């Protein structure tokens, strides 16, 4: 079995990269993708801990991961719909350029 520390390092790294994307990138779509990475880093932890749980793993973590995956997919769809609406009104998805909350 892989040491749990390795997995934690991996998921931390992923989370950091995702956070970097969320904070630095201006493009809304890339930000959405970064959020996907964030979520996946978190799901990874769920899965890992569920398999490390004694004696033969705890399925609760996997169930939670399943739920999170479904929510992530839904979140992506809703986010894209919002950005599509934004794009149609503002003509851009650069987050800097969208300064009005109302249109």
């Amino acid at each position, binding site marked *: 079995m892989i040491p749990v520390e390795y997995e934690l390092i991996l998921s931390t790294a992923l989370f950091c990269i995702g956070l970097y994307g969320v904070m630095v990138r201006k493009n809304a779509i890339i930000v959405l993708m970064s959020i996907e*990475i964030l979520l996946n880093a978190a799901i990874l932890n769920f899965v890992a801990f569920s398999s490390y749980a004694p004696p033969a793993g705890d399925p609760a973590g996997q169930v939670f991961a399943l739920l999170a995956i479904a929510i992530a997919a839904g979140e992506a769809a809703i986010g894209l719909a919002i950005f599509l609406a934004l794009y149609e009104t503002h003509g851009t998805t650069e987050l800097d350029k969208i300064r009005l909350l109302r249109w």
Partner: protein
Amino acid sequence: MAVDWQLAAFLILSVLEIGGSIMVVTAKKLVHAVFWLALTLVTIGGIYLLFLSEFLFLIQILVYAGAVPVLFLFGIMLTRRKIMEEVTPGEVLEGPGEAPREGLP
């Protein structure tokens, strides 16, 4: 020599994963970012496999194989503006389709 295959697989997958996610947040082209995202998600699925949750792995692929194309589509719509706007050879520059439209009822 006892090679820990699991660890080796884990390391390979994590390198792919971190590399892919770095490419996602640094990619210049949106569609490239989506491609790297797909790679990242599939490799994360591989890690699930290492943690003996095959079901989650398959669900990951199924869900994201459905969700990522939507992202793709969006990227396409936003980035391939160039070939949509550029004038094809032989096209009248002042706007094709003007002539037949003039006398329309």
